[in-house]
């Protein structure tokens, strides 16, 4: 995917020169292996700062919220779906954006790579579908497809759903993906087992809110956990408060989450909170045939009323 970089720079330079955008939002090379930093470029001569590789997992739709400028934004499949959601929810206007679509082959799971080695990872590079991981004393090669971030391995919308420019040819979408095998296992558990699972799942949480803040859906001016007049949720490390935060946040994302994986990627202690969001995603798909962020013409199921609703209680 790294040859996307040249094309992204070329498009960005053109957009900035032609004055079609005030800034381009993309990624610049990070200082740590497997990390890039979201950045903006305002001058055509600075586009060489922009990079693209398998470590651009942060969702850039998050950086568009309520901005007033005209913006060129780099968008892989999930980012583009969150841009659609942002437009529908009036967090940015379509006409403010020039979307530079990036057909995506999935991001690499930095956590998985770190867990495969006792030694510190010093660099991660790619060559012909292989990932080359270097530590102080060793160099190992892996199949790229074995190292995808968990959400990317399950992704069925790798191509941007909305774009004005493309950084590469569209890629083939993954077929016959079972997105919910683990969710069905949890659904089948008796309540006490579920309780135990959630207790354990969130036991390491430090309430840093990296998951919430990395999420493009979490743009509330005051999040319910920060509400202090009156206060809704306790601020200590009480596990009930911690779970309240995670459960409620997940519900706020129901019908809106694109499973971009930014939450799990951002978590400093490796919590898979996507187990919650994907359960709600599954429910929305099964109940309403809904997948978030695919169309500008349809509102999410939980913020719309239809006269032909199949349920009687709402009529």
């Amino acid at each position, binding site marked *: 995917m790294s040859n996307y970089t040249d094309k992204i720079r070329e498009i960005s330079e053109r957009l900035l020169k032609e004055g079609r955008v005030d800034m381009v939002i993309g990624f610049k090379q*990070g*200082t*740590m292996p497997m990390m890039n930093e979201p950045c903006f470029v305002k001058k055509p001569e600075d586009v060489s700062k922009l990079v693209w590789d398998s470590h651009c997992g942060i969702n850039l739709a998050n950086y568009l919220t309520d901005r007033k400028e005209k913006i060129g934004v780099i968008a892989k499949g999930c980012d583009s779906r969150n841009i659609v959601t942002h437009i529908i929810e009036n967090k940015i206007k379509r006409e403010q954006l020039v979307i530079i679509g990036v057909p995506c082959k999935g991001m690499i799971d930095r956590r998985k790579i770190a867990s495969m080695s006792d030694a510190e990872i010093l660099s991660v590079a790619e060559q012909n579908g292989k990932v080359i991981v270097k530590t102080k004393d060793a160099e190992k090669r892996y199949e790229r497809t074995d190292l995808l971030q968990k959400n990317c391995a399950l992704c069925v919308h790798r191509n941007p759903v909305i774009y004005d420019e493309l950084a590469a040819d569209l890629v083939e979408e993954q077929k016959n993906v079972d997105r919910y095998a683990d969710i069905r296992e949890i659904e089948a558990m008796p309540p006490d087992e579920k309780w135990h699972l959630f207790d354990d799942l969130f036991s390491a949480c430090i*309430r*840093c809110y*990296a998951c919430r803040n*990395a999420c493009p859906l979490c743009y509330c001016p005051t999040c319910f956990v920060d509400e202090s007049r009156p206060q809704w949720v306790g601020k200590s490390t009480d596990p009930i408060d911690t779970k309240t935060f995670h459960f409620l946040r997940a519900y706020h994302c129901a019908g809106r989450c694109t499973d971009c994986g930014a939450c799990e990627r951002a978590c*400093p202690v490796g919590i898979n909170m996507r187990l919650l969001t994907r359960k709600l995603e599954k429910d929305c798909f099964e109940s309403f045939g809904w997948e978030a962020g695919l169309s500008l013409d349809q509102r999410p199921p939980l913020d719309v009323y239809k006269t032909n609703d199949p349920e009687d209680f709402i009529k």
Partner: protein
Amino acid sequence: MKVIKIDKKDWAGGLDKASSGYRFFGPVEDKECHNFKELDKGELPDFNFSNTRLSAKSVVFPQTEAMFEYSLDENEADHHLMKECRKNDAPRAVLGIRPCDASAFLLVKRNFDNPEYRDPWWVKAYESTTFAGLACNNPCASCFCTSAGCGPFDEKGLDVLLVDAGDHFLAKVVTEKGRKMLAAAGWNAETDADIEALKKDAESKISSFVPTDKLKDKTTMELYNAAFWEEAAFACLNCGTCTYSCPTCWCFDIQDESKGKSGIRMRNWDSCMYPLFTLHGSGHNPRGTKIHRVRQRFMHKLKYYVDKYGDGIQCVGCGRCIRLCPVNIDIRKICEKMNSYEPKAGDCNR
């Protein structure tokens, strides 16, 4: 100072012997990382780690700490009185704390224990603790401790410095507290083994250096108004990962929680990244935007602290914030920018 040789086969036995006099805390692997926790009877610290995911500051300064409690139940003798919570101040020992994390307590001490203010809970916990540190034989590429007034074998925050030397530890006695702990464990085999060579070797492996020499001479308001903050803050999510994982971040927030007729007054870690941080009763927040918050964090560590105490930066170079930041904001780069900053005409970012 004396160096004691501890054969690793005597490690568990010694700890067991000392456990009647100490509550032990040590790194334990849980899920994907090591963190400090109180060790159960017979449980050994796991030293197979480079550093713990979170720092050891919670041993003395827990994320949530109850300070006072009360009851409104009139059947109880001392109802309607705010009482100080009982704490377990029995001697404790932190095993395997890295020198950077231990020296961080000395920076934090300036906040909690100074001529104007002594925080009773922090001071009691700190004073009851013996720090038995584990020297870093293989520092990470993101560690810059030697630029932050510390080092992989730094002793200044420690009572004992343990050096892993294969089948044994070399334990350098740094303080009387440390001597007592070693004696309680029955470790007394003095050796003339020299740890200087190991120390030099570890220091030579530090690959990350950050210049801090010019920070004190910079003009605060010029740095504050520098144009680079917009770019530096852009990626920041304003999550609390950097501040919560930092061994030197000391801010806390006081909360009351009640249930039925009883309640507690507690303090919780706060973070300058959060919207409630420094929010005034009027609703105004002097640090109301992302740029304000990011600037606050770095100005506090790298300028205000430097000016106030005249003893370097409020950072020990452990590198956690660099490794854990979800968007790769790197304090080394920001420090370089601040240290080399020369104001240009037109710079203003109020």
